[in-house]
């Protein structure tokens, strides 16, 4: 655990000043309130408008490998694009981060969930999708590998609208 965090720190500083998340892994980097960790928010990754930029900014040179050990559950048809439920579960062990991408959205990175030593999937959230697209879930494990799963969501409008 320690090793990855330090390497991620050094790498992050090198990659154009992006302060990647060090704090989430139990290190007491505080700002503001005492007992919580103020993870520096990866602004450039969240501002990125293409999938490749997000991957490069978050994971540098590592490329995610499709894996069927990830269960990405999304409704096939989302009747309301502003509330689309997403659940990511996985049988992989040593999961550290779960990242959700929406390549069809103006801002591709939707969220990154950092599981502490005792954190586990499944993780469930509700997201906003601008149009029908494939949602991508990337699971980062302790061995430094990245595993990905993709699921299409059809975003439609209601039939009536006044």
């Amino acid at each position: 655990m320690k090793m990855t965090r330090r390497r991620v720190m050094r790498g992050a500083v090198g990659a154009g000043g992006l302060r990647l998340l060090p704090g989430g892994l139990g290190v007491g980097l505080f700002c503001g309130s005492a007992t919580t960790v103020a993870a520096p928010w990866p602004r450039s990754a969240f501002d990125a408008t293409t999938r490749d930029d997000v991957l490069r900014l978050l994971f540098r040179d590592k490329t995610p490998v499709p894996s069927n050990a990830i269960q990405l559950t999304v409704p096939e048809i989302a009747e309301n694009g502003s509330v689309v439920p997403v659940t990511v579960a996985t049988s992989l062990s040593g999961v550290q981060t779960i990242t959700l991408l929406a390549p069809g959205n103006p801002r591709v990175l939707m969220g990154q969930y950092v599981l502490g030593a005792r954190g586990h999937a499944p993780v469930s959230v509700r997201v906003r999708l601008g149009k029908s697209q494939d949602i991508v879930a990337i699971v980062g494990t302790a061995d430094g590998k990245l595993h990905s799963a993709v699921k299409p969501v059809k975003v439609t409008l209601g039939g009536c609208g006044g």
Partner: protein
Amino acid sequence: MSNTIRGRAKVSANGQAEIRLLINHPMTIERIDPATGKRQPGHFIEEISAVHKGETVFSALCGQAVSQNPFLAFTVAGVEKGDVITVHWRDTKGENDRADITVA
């Protein structure tokens, strides 16, 4: 009790607690002001973290794609009934809130 965070934590037999959170927040996305064409940044939660026994067991970094009144559910191992999990959020304007959730 905080007025923006609502949470439930339920521990199952194997000591894993499922924590469900609902946070009252508008989560507005960035807008281009039609008049000036200037980019107006969104007002949304950037980070939600959960601390159990002094250790950050879960941390969510959110973008503007997270829905209004964000919902978040996750699981934490090594939790017993009666433990307290402290949840904290912080948004793009520096506002924040915290809540203690006792595990049922």
